């Protein structure tokens, strides 16, 4: 199936990656090539074949219902990005992460 520039923009939106007009054009040609490669799969009859979702047939282990993690908030927050929009302060306050306001 041939992709269009509009498809690229839609996928990029779903993936939350901003693309400019020129990037979308360049991406279209590269993705078209890759999807051409992927298209080879359609020639295979896979009727009745059970999908293989993992490299090993595994069953999820259950662990004991006890606390195993310790609070490392301060250590983790040292990696917080800068707030941005003119501020070079870390995007944290009172142990929380700062993001743009989403609820009025």
């Amino acid at each position, binding site marked *: 199936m041939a992709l269009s520039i509009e498809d690229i923009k839609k996928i990029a939106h779903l993936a939350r990656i*901003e693309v400019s007009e020129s990037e979308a054009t360049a991406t279209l040609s590269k993705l078209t090539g890759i999807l051409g490669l992927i298209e080879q799969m359609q020639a*295979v009859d896979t009727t009745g*074949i059970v999908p293989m979702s993992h490299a090993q047939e595994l069953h999820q282990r259950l662990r004991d219902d006890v606390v195993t993690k310790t609070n490392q908030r301060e250590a983790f927050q040292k*990696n917080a990005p800068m707030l*941005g929009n003119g501020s070079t302060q870390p995007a944290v306050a009172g142990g929380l*992460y700062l993001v743009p306001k989403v609820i009025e």
Partner: protein
Amino acid sequence: MINSSLKQLASMLQAKKISSVELTQSFLTRITQYNPSINAYIALDEAKTLAQAKAADARIAAGHATVLTGIPLAQKDIFCAQGWQTTCGSKMLANFIAPYDAHVITQFDQAGAVNLGKTNMDEFAMGSSNETSYFGGVKNPWSFDHVPGGSSGGSAAAVAARLCAAATGTDTGGSIRQPASLCGLTGLKPSYGVVSRYGMIAFASSLDQAGPMAKSAEDCALMMNVMAGFDERDSTSLQRDKEDYSRELNKPQTDQPLLGLKIGLPKEFFAEGLDASVAQVITVAIDVYKKLGAQIVDISLPNTGLSIPVYYVLAPAEASSNLSRYDGVRYGHRAAEYTDLNDMYNKSRAEGFGAEVKRRILIGTYVLSAGYYDAYYLKAQQIRRLIAQDFIEAFKQCDVIMGPAAPSTAFKAGEKVDDPVAMYLQDIYTISTNLAGLPGMSLPAGFAQAKDGPALPVGLQIIGNYFDEARMLNVAHQYQQVTDWHQQMPDLKRA
């Protein structure tokens, strides 16, 4: 000394002929001299490294040394190491200081090994040439015009240039074996689930597996003894008894140590697409195996060609999900200017990821999007089973499978950078083992003359049945007892 095996280094350290500080310093001196041109390391921290060496010397003095105590290793920058810059080759994580250790790092720490630094890699392990790294490409130590392969290109170059005693890598579609092949090393991708993925930055979780990259099979076995083992923090870690991966290597030597071994040669690995000079080297290596007593069996892995299309559905699908965590909120790159939350995500991810990573996220998003799931993702999972079944059938006829690890020797930097599909075809002989979850390794088998350049290393691939690493390591080790390709060193002054 820089060409010594891990066993030799261990005995020198334990006999106190050299201290770990001295040994570490000699590698650091080589790194200072050669890393600016090779670019194998992203992060170095001499103070941390030497502190570990000092602690190792104290441990040796106290008589509590293990084989790897005091030995300087390089760690792929995909492993979180507490207090170390851990970037995964990406601008997204350029300022990330890992707050905890990956399981593999913990294992090496407990063994008393010394961490020399974090090695360069393709961004988020997506690439076959190390050219997608935000921190620049890596030179192949055999020829600086050529790529070292990828994604574990920095680890491969560091081992080849003797800028470390051995290194770690990870392999999602060939990222240990292809660079090992292109740089003339021995590298092993274990069976899926043998080495914990805890603290290893995720690319495609059903395929990612860590393993050693070293000068010889013997060194790889010693590394595996430390790296492998059950870890409850990785839900896919397998609960198996601890293994000694060196056990087969130490058997008494005979003239035909591999008598009775059945080696399967898949016809698809020698078909069109394989460079004639590489095929020649592999044929000669197989002849060595015949002299060692092995028997050759012609086999077929009919779905080999489909492994690339299947992989480029499954790996991007998993990657698009795994990499959705990079949103600019809690860590990683956040755009300097943004209007609202969506704009912050869009810009942070657009700026933080490089072109190849974005391409794979977009492919993954597309194949998982509404209406396409059955045609792509489900179809790929079904063919994945056909590929795995090919191997199950093949192993009814043989003990190990051999062939080339890569279709050609190292290519020139820039040659495939604008053609993703040509780059993807580099992994034609390696990807199917990841899809099946099987162990695979590459070992140096000689050199082939490039069309317009120097003689470059060729890797022989060995694929084993599930959990057959110890036998594979011995099969490689016996070859290395009668050949010396693994001991060849590049001349860095002429590369």
